[in-house]
């Protein structure tokens, strides 16, 4: 396990740019873009837990029950809190990690549902549904593309933050 960790660490070190100073503005832009997207998405879902629970249920992963309703209640707040963290600079690393993981889950869920609809005979480019993301119904391929971009943005932000150096005073709370 220790050997594996050393290998992972060496790969990260290899990719670490020598000077991150020039990237600060880029990181700031990345943070604000991600925050704007997730604040909008969260506001669309906060206060509508029942409707959101139905949208989550459509993925066929969680059925009616406490887990479904808790997810519908907490997920929009998680998105909002992470977005506010990105805006304020507090808990930056943690929020970037959560958004990366969330986007990975969204991509898997949308892929699963798309595959199910395609299995019923609909071609990929014509698969159209409301993913419950807060942006209304859209073509699945577009949603997958959007989520992939968001995943790369959040993952990229986390990667850059981890390799920028030590945690800043505002971030290390």
């Amino acid at each position, binding site marked *: 396990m220790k050997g594996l960790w050393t290998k992972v660490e060496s790969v990260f070190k290899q990719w670490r740019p020598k000077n991150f100073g020039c990237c600060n503005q880029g990181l700031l832009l990345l943070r604000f873009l991600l925050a704007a997207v997730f604040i909008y998405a969260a506001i669309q879902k906060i206060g509508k*837990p029942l409707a959101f629970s139905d949208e989550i249920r459509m993925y066929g992963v969680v059925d009616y029950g*406490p887990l479904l309703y808790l997810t*519908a209640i*907490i997920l929009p*707040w998680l998105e909002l809190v992470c977005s506010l*963290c990105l805006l304020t600079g507090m*808990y930056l*690393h*943690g929020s970037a990690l959560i958004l990366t993981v969330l986007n990975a889950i969204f991509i898997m869920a949308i892929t699963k549902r798309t595959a199910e609809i395609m299995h019923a005979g609909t071609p990929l480019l014509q698969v159209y549904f409301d993913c419950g993301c807060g942006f209304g119904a859209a073509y699945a391929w577009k949603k997958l593309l959007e989520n992939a971009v968001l995943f790369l943005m959040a993952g990229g932000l986390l990667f850059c933050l*981890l390799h920028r150096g030590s945690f800043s005073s505002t971030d290390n709370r």
Partner: protein
Amino acid sequence: MKDHFKKVIRQAVVILFISLFLGMGVNSFFRNGIDPFRYPAASATTATEIRKIGLEQAQQVIAGGIPILDARSQEDFSEGHIPGAISLPYYDMGSYLDRVLPFLSTNQPILIYCSEASCADAEFLARSIFQLGYAKLLVFKGGFKAWVAAGLTIEREAL
């Protein structure tokens, strides 16, 4: 590097807890909040069996004389309700069910409403009623707010 990862995980856990408390806290104060631990054991087909209708369609079915259930609290019902409605508060369903069931028939459509378009109680009540064998359920999405906004008559006396 390893310390960084530990800090990242710690931060993520803190954010998760903040979201949990905010979500549950706001949900408990929101009028259209839901109780995640008191849910109707709905079957997979329930959601598709329950039809959501708008104001115009609601007026038509009400004119046809179908039973109307008000899923709001008894206090809200007493302050005003759709004429002919029977109070069956979702969050106190057990206390009211015996009084209400004699008015309902499993073969007849039943209209259910709550306070407004985003409220959850009407749909939750519909899911619970569905489990009792009432399959023809209509949820008036606009709820009492849309009814009042349209300037339609209301009744004030309690059941």
